[in-house]
């Protein structure tokens, strides 16, 4: 009896103890697994508060008599539009698309008028003094010089945004007008538009309407933004999850919602305040991730940071523009161009050296929604340092700031060494002072600064500049978004953002050494102690 009882007890013991110890672990494993299922494994569910507008147009423009007349010029079309939409032109003419500038308050408190019309960048540098070329993207007709009448509604170009046929096109170097006769420019031929056909088919702007200008800023496809290129006309999921033709197939205005011609969203190369912005949160509401740790990251990290891991996924974007190397001629004394293997221009006599890149990994900065720009006439404090043409404000300690991805366009451009100002050069024109023709910086600087009403000392040099382009497009499918380890490691993508502690990337050197010493010391103590014990034990036995 007793024997049996003891044996039963032994067996019970053998079964119970592993169960006691393992069961809680098994439970933890189960819980952990289910949490992991819900938090790590990507599921094909999209939490979005968005519905595409599929209702048909409320009117049929082809039935309107006023659009059946014969149009000789685009301005007549505008008159026809305004004859019915008789207040819309006022909305358009109040928008930055028309004015190309707006009132903005600078950090010091100065209020200035600033915008595309007087901005300096480190691409083609400025619209001032080169207007007739740049204004081919203005939503108006005939802005070729200072005398353009901003108050004449007939100058408004309705069709560039509302043409749905694709038949309407402004010509390059045409101050915003379409061609009147058939014209070939570089490798493309432009035809006079059929205004009646176009006017009968007006509608909501499509990707093509916006892209026509916004994808080609800087004089070519994807030159400026890096995340806005002609690739978005027909994007697949890898290019942009939102504009994926096989998926949600959204167009620009689905996000950039517009109330009375005021379009949400803006770019911090030409604006500096934190309003009228587009945010992901408009549609992606609530806790967007299943993993709460990741949700907490949204306090400090913008959505774009993880979800736009690379930009310029198709067409190359310009990364560097060095004006200082311009002016070379070939052995015939003629201007020349050089190309890379992808037919991107890498050198042009009248422009300098370019560098291009595709599938670029963004750089990252803190940003709180406010910015400042170099306004023509600003004195450069340190001409030996890199000049930030636009500065994005933000820091780790600022509660409003988040880390955002940016394209930084680096350049070298002309400045006045005496007056310590960036020079507005006259680049384009038919006259010899235009740099692209005469390639004389002194003449170009003189003419350009005169146009701008700024002094020029006659002495110039080149200064390194940077422009910050926040990235908001070319959102990647969720599998391609950044992983924890991309930032939380010694080779962090954020290694340039210092001044705060990030797990996995940072450690305190003193604490690391102390810790290693503690562990090594303990091990050492154990080894020494046990060696003495063993030796002494032998001694005692002997």
């Amino acid at each position, binding site marked *: 009896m007793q024997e049996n009882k003891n044996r039963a007890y032994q067996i019970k013991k053998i079964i119970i*103890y592993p169960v006691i110890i393992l069961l809680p672990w098994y439970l933890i494993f189960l819980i952990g697994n289910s*949490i*992991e299922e819900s938090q790590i494994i990507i599921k094909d569910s999209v939490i979005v508060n968005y519905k595409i507008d599929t209702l048909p147009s409320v009117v049929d423009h082809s039935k309107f008599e006023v659009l059946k007349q014969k149009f000789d010029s685009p301005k007549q079309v505008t008159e026809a539009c305004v004859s019915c939409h008789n207040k819309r032109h006022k909305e358009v003419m109040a928008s930055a698309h028309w004015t190309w500038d707006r009132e903005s308050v600078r950090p010091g408190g100065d209020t200035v008028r600033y915008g595309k019309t007087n901005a300096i960048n480190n691409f083609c540098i400025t619209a001032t003094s080169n207007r007739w070329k740049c204004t081919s993207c203005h939503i108006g007709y005939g802005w070729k010089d200072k005398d353009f009448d901003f108050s004449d509604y007939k100058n408004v170009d309705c069709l560039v945004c509302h043409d749905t046929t694709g038949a309407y096109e402004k010509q390059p170097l045409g101050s915003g007008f379409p061609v009147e006769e058939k014209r070939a420019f570089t490798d493309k031929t432009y035809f006079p538009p059929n205004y009646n056909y176009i006017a009968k088919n007006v509608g909501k702007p499509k990707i093509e309407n916006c892209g026509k200008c916004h994808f080609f800023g800087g004089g070519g496809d994807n030159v400026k933004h890096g995340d806005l290129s002609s690739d978005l006309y027909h994007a697949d999921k890898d290019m942009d999850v939102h504009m994926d033709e096989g998926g949600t197939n959204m167009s620009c205005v689905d996000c950039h919602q517009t109330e009375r011609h005021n379009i949400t969203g803006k770019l911090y190369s030409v604006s500096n305040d934190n309003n009228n912005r587009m945010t992901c949160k408009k549609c992606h509401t609530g806790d967007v991730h299943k993993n709460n*740790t990741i949700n907490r990251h949204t306090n400090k990290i913008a959505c774009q940071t993880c979800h736009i891991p690379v930009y310029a996924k198709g067409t190359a974007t310009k990364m560097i523009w060095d004006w200082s190397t311009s002016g070379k001629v070939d052995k015939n004394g003629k201007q020349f161009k050089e190309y890379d293997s992808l037919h991107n221009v890498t050198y042009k006599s009248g422009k300098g050296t370019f560098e291009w890149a595709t599938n670029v990994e963004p750089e990252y900065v803190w940003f709180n929604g406010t910015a400042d720009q170099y306004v023509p006439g600003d004195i450069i404090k340190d001409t030996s340092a890199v000049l930030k043409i636009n500065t994005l404000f933000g820091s780790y300690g600022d509660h409003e700031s988040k880390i955002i991805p940016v394209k930084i366009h680096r350049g070298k451009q002309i400045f006045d060494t005496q007056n310590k100002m960036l020079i507005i050069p006259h680049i384009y024109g038919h006259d010899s002072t235009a740099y692209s023709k005469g390639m004389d910086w002194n003449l170009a600087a003189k003419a350009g600064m005169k146009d701008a009403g700024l002094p020029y000392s006659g002495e110039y040099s080149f200064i390194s500049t940077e422009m910050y382009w926040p990235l908001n497009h070319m959102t990647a499918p969720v599998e391609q978004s950044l*992983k924890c380890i991309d930032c939380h490691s010694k080779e962090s993508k954020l290694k340039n953002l210092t001044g705060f502690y990030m797990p996995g990337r940072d450690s305190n050197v003193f604490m690391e050494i102390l810790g290693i010493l503690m562990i090594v010391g*303990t091990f050492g103590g154990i080894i020494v102690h046990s060696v003495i014990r063993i030796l002494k034990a032998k001694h005692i036995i002997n």
Partner: protein
Amino acid sequence: MIKLQKIDKIIRPENNQTKRAYIYKGFERFWHWSQALLIIFLVITGFEVHGSYELLGYQRAVLYHDIAAWALLVLIIFAVFWHFATGAWKQYVPTMKLVKAQINYYILGIFKGAAHPTKKTSYNKFNPLQRLTYLGFKVFIIPLQVISGFLYMYYMYPENPIHIERLDIIAIIHTFGSFLLIVFLLAHLYLLTTSESPKESFVAMLHGWEEVTVDPEEEHREHLQYAVDKSIAGYYRLDLDGLFISVNDAWMELYKCKERNNIIGMHCSITRNDKNAKRLNGMVSSVLKGKSLRGVYVDRKCFDGTIGKHILSMNPTFEDDIIVGVEGFIIDVTDIHRLQEQMYHSVRNSEAGYYRLNSKGYYEEINDAWLKMYKCVDKDNIIGKHYSLSRTIKDLKQANEIFEKIMKGETISSMIVTRKCKDNTTAQHILSANPVYENNKVIGAEGFIIDISGLEKDI
């Protein structure tokens, strides 16, 4: 049952007695191993989060680290509750006694093969260094890690009222804590090898049983404490001046005392009449000289004014061999006394005869009435004689049957029998008989007898 047998079996009759005792309770072991595994797991995932290596993948490491942290927190809450509910916290009360000896042992004695300066007993599982270390572990490292860990998780939670600007201090403290844990773990494992039998000590943490030294004094103290608390005997302890230091619940009840504060610090004479108080003082002073009293019969004065009867013991209390007071137990005999007295008188004065037989049927006790009924003069003639003496031959058979029945536990309430008196006359009796018990065993029979001879005639 099994557990008890185990203890019994192992006790060895040695001077340095050991016994195999169940020293690690089920929850304790579960807590120990779960905590160990959780901490090791937290260290592994934690250092991956720290960027020291890649193992599970960063996101998994963070997720598992968080889950394990919550699990550990739950475990800690249970453990804290357990420690207080069971009184196991007492094992961790630090003592500086023998700390030096223990350190000396580790840095010198162990090499010379010296004996451990402290013994592991059921009530003192840890040596003084262990007490200090484990206490430090519980009140310093664990809270450090829990607090810094939760700040780490929630330092920038938007709804968080304490929005901390910088993570670095929190992270550095948390890292420091994890280094401490590693050092603790290494030292803990190494010091296991300094135990007399490392393997047994390790296995003991699995099944709970370990050979521990028996410290008779400690055993006595621990058992006694329990016994005193639960006893129905009153316990009291006085200091050198005869003032109450401590009494147990039973004491309070005996003296009808409702508030402990009414008695602690009072002089012991409060429970006595003036006359008795002198006697008590005498007793106390003699005990303080080293004498022990047992079984003293005294009158008490209760708090409600009633008088009671007590039997008390009194012995000196020692601290480091010096008498520091007296203590003793009190048994209330008031009711017992009265009952016995009544019984005595009722039996003695009764007209009914009383008898008691032993298991063999011999007379052990009879009263005067019995003697009178049987016309005997001397008790001694009867005591020690068999009951057959008082029966007719015809009646003897019946008497034998009755006796056998009684010895089997039956009770006879009234039976008419014929007796044979000493003077050879016979008479009719009604008798009762019931078994006499001792430790649940029938050791004899007793009963009363009423003479109905005259009654019959009257009828």
